[in-house]
C-alpha cells in the first residue's frame, strides 16, 4: 500500500519536473529554422574549419574576430523565389572566409522571425519590404529599432573600389521609402525595384484597332468605345494596389514637392486643388470599373480580377511587374500579349508617371553582428550579387543592371526611358496612432467609392482627418 503511494507520488513529481523541461532551451538551434531545403552545397560550404584555417581569418578584411562568425540573414521569399538567396549566401561566404551565413528564407518571414525577436533575439540582416500585412518593418521603424545605414553608403562595395552610394541609381536614396523619418538619414537599403503602372492586353488593342490612350481624355473616350463592346475600361486586384496608383497620380497632379507634402501629412494638403483632382479622377475611374471587381477585391479572389484582363473583360489593371509571373499559368484569350504603360498625366501636357515600388533591406538596432551585417548590405550592391539576383529577374537599383533583362521584363523596366516620371516613396513614419491607418483610409475606401457607398467628399474628409492625426505624431 505504502509502496503504491510512493510510486504515484514519484510519478506526479516526475510530471511536474518534465513540465519545465521545455523551458530550459530557448530554441537556440539555428539548424531548426525553416531553411527551405537549401541545396546541400550551399548549406555549409566551408564548414570544416580546422585550426589553421581559423587562424588565417584573424586579419581578414571584414575585421572579424578570430573565430568563425555567424551572420544571421532573414529574407522574404517573394515572387523571385528562394534559390537566389541561397546562392547569395554561398557567394558571400566564399568571398568572406570565416563567415558563415545562416539563412532563413520564407514567404511569411515575419511569422518565422518575430517570435524570437519578441524575446530579444534578432537576426542581423532582414530583407523585408514595407507594406506587408503584418507590418513588421513599419513597426520596427515606428519603434525606432533600426540601425542607420549612413556608414554603409560610405563603404566601398566589397571587392570593388566604388562607394555603395555611388553605385545606387540616383534618386533611390532620397525617398521616404529609404529615409522613413524624412530627416535625410537612410535606414532602408533599396533592393529589388519594380515599376508599377497599368497592364493591358496589347493583342486586344491590335485586334480592335484601338490606340493606347496617353491622356485621361483619351482614356474616357476609350472607356465609352469599349463599353459599347461589353468590355470595361478598368479593374483592380485589391484596393491595396491603389497606393502605387494614388502616389503616381498625386505626383503627376502636383509635382514631387506636392507629393512629399502629402506623404508628410501637411495641413490641408488632402483638400487642396491638386489632391481633389486625384480623388475625382479615381471616382470617375470607378464608374468605368468592371462591375464584379469589388466582390473579388480580397485576398482570396483577387486573381479573378486579374483574370479579367486575360479574358478581355476589362482593359487596364494597375499592378507591378510581378503580374505576368503571377498569372503565368492562367488561361488567356487568343492573341494575348502583355502591354504595360505608365499612368497618363493628370494635368494636360504633363508627363505620365509610374510609381517605383521597391523592397528594402535593413539592420535591426538590436542585431549582434552589426559590422558584418553592414558588410553584407554593402555586398548586395556588388556586380557579383547583382548578377545572381538578376538571374531570377530581381532587379536592383544599380545602373546598368536592367541590361541583363530579356523579353517582357525588358519592356517593363524601360517604362522610365519612355518619358514617364519615376515616383518613389511612401507615407512618412510616425509614432503609432491608435485606430488610424492612412493606407486603409486612402486605399480601402476606393471599394466604397466604386460601389457608391461613400461620396468623394466623405472620403477626402476622412483622409484629411487621418492626416491631421498622423501629423501630430510625427517628430
Amino acid at each position, binding site marked *: 500500500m505504502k509502496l503504491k503511494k510512493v510510486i504515484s*507520488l514519484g510519478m506526479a513529481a516526475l510530471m511536474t519536473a518534465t513540465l519545465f523541461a521545455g523551458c530550459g532551451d530557448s530554441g537556440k538551434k539555428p539548424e531548426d529554422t525553416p531553411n527551405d531545403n537549401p541545396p546541400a552545397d550551399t548549406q555549409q560550404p566551408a564548414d570544416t574549419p580546422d585550426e589553421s584555417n581559423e587562424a588565417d581569418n584573424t586579419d581578414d578584411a571584414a575585421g572579424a574576430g578570430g573565430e568563425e562568425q555567424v551572420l544571421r540573414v532573414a529574407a522574404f521569399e517573394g515572387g523571385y523565389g528562394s534559390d537566389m538567396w541561397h546562392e547569395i549566401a554561398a557567394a558571400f561566404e566564399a568571398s568572406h572566409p570565416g563567415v558563415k551565413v545562416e539563412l532563413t528564407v520564407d514567404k511569411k518571414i515575419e511569422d518565422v522571425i518575430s517570435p524570437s525577436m519578441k524575446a530579444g533575439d534578432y537576426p542581423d540582416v532582414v530583407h523585408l519590404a514595407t507594406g506587408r500585412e503584418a*507590418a513588421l518593418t513599419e513597426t520596427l521603424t515606428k*519603434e525606432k529599432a533600426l540601425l542607420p545605414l549612413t556608414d554603409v553608403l560610405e563603404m566601398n562595395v566589397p571587392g570593388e573600389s566604388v562607394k555603395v552610394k555611388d553605385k545606387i541609381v540616383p534618386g533611390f536614396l532620397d525617398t521616404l521609402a529609404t529615409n522613413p523619418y524624412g530627416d535625410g538619414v537612410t535606414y532602408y537599403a533599396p533592393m529589388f525595384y519594380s515599376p508599377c503602372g497599368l497592364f493591358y492586353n496589347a493583342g486586344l488593342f491590335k485586334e480592335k484597332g484601338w490606340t493606347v490612350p496617353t491622356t485621361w481624355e483619351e482614356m474616357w473616350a476609350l472607356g465609352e468605345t469599349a463599353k459599347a463592346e461589353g468590355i470595361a475600361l478598368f479593374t483592380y486586384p485589391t484596393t491595396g494596389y491603389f497606393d502605387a496608383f494614388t502616389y503616381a497620380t498625386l505626383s503627376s497632379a502636383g509635382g514631387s514637392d506636392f507629393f512629399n507634402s502629402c506623404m508628410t501629412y501637411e495641413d490641408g494638403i488632402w483638400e487642396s486643388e491638386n489632391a481633389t483632382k486625384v480623388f475625382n479622377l479615381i471616382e470617375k475611374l470607378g464608374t468605368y470599373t468592371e462591375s464584379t*471587381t469589388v466582390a473579388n*477585391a480580397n485576398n482570396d479572389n483577387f486573381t479573378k480580377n486579374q483574370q479579367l484582363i486575360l479574358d478581355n473583360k476589362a482593359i487596364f489593371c494597375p499592378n507591378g511587374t510581378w503580374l505576368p509571373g503571377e498569372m503565368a499559368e492562367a488561361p488567356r484569350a487568343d492573341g494575348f500579349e502583355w502591354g504595360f504603360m505608365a499612368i497618363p498625366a493628370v494635368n494636360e501636357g504633363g508627363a505620365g508617371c509610374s510609381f517605383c515600388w521597391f523592397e528594402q533591406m535593413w539592420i535591426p538596432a538590436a542585431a549582434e553582428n552589426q559590422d558584418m551585417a553592414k558588410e553584407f548590405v554593402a555586398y548586395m550592391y556588388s556586380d557579383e550579387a547583382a548578377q545572381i539576383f538578376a538571374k531570377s529577374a530581381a532587379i536592383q537599383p544599380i545602373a546598368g543592371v536592367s541590361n541583363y533583362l530579356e523579353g517582357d521584363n525588358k519592356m517593363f523596366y524601360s517604362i522610365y526611358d519612355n518619358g514617364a516620371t519615376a515616383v518613389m516613396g511612401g507615407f512618412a513614419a510616425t509614432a*503609432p496612432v*491608435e485606430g488610424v491607418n492612412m493606407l486603409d483610409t486612402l486605399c480601402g475606401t476606393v471599394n466604397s467609392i466604386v*460601389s457608391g457607398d461613400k461620396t468623394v467628399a466623405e472620403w477626402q474628409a476622412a483622409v484629411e482627418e487621418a492626416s491631421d492625426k498622423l501629423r501630430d505624431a510625427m517628430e
Partner: protein
Amino acid sequence: MKKSRARSVFIGVCVAPAVILFIIFMLIPTFNVFKMSLYKWGGYSNNKEFVGFNNFKILIEDANFFRSFQNTVLLIVCVTIVTMALSLIFAAILSREKIRGQNFFRIVFYIPNILSVVVISAIFSAIYDPNNGLLNSILGIFRGADSDPILWLGDQKLVIYSLVIAMIWQAIGYYMVMYMASMASVPESLYESANLEGAGRIQQFFSITLPLIWTNVRTTLTFFVISSINLSFLFVKALTGGGPDGATEVFLSYMYKQAYTNSSYGYGMAIGVVVFLFSFGLSAVVNYATKREPLEF
C-alpha cells in the same frame, strides 16, 4: 495527524501539474493582456510607455471599432438563433423519426465541422462568385440570365449576411450532434405516454424534448458566443479580409489589424480586454436569463 499531512502533500503534488499549466498558459497571459492594454507599445522594442486608460479612451471614440462591434453582435445573434433552431429541428428529426439513411445525414451534416475554415471559405468563395458562382447561377434562372449579378461579397449591405450563411453551414452539424446525444437519453416511455394522451409530434418536442435537454441547450449558448467571436475572425481573414472597406470587420480582425498592421500592440490589447469582458458578460447574462429548474427523468 501525520497521516493527514502526508495526504495533503500527496494531493498537492497530484494537482500541481494541472495548476502550474493553468497558471502558465491561462492566468499569466490573461493578466498580461490586461497589463499591456495600459501601455503604448509597438510590440517589439523596449519602449513601453504607461498611458493608463488612454487606450480605452481612444477606443470609445473609434468609429471603426464600433462598426466591428456591431458586426460581431449581429453575427452572434444571427448565427446563434438560426443555427440553434436548425440544429434542434434536424436533431429532433434524426433522433425521433425513422427515416432512411439516418447515419448518412448525420455524417453529411457533421462534415463541415471537420473541414478547416480556410477550405470552407474557398468553397463559399466559389459559391458566391458573381459570374460563375452556384448561387448566382441558380438565381439567374429566376432573375433572367443577363440581369446584373448579385455581389455577395461586394455589396456592403449584403456581405455580412454572406458571412452569416457560411458560419451557420459550418456550425449546424456540431450542435446537431450535441443535441442528438442528449435527446438519446430522454426515456422512450415519456413519448409513449404522450402518444397515448394524444400529443402530436410538435407538442412532444416542445413539452418533452426541449425541457429535458434544456441544460444542454444552455451550455451550447455559451459555446455559440465564444465560437462566433473566434470563428468570425477566421472566416473574415480567409473570405473577405474585412472588406469591402471595413464592412465585415469583426472584433478580432480589427484587433489584429491594430495590434500588428498598425503597430499599436497596446491598443490591440485594449480591444482584447473589451472582447474578453464582453464575451464573459454576455455568457453570464445568457446563462442567467436561461436559468430553469433542472428537470429530472
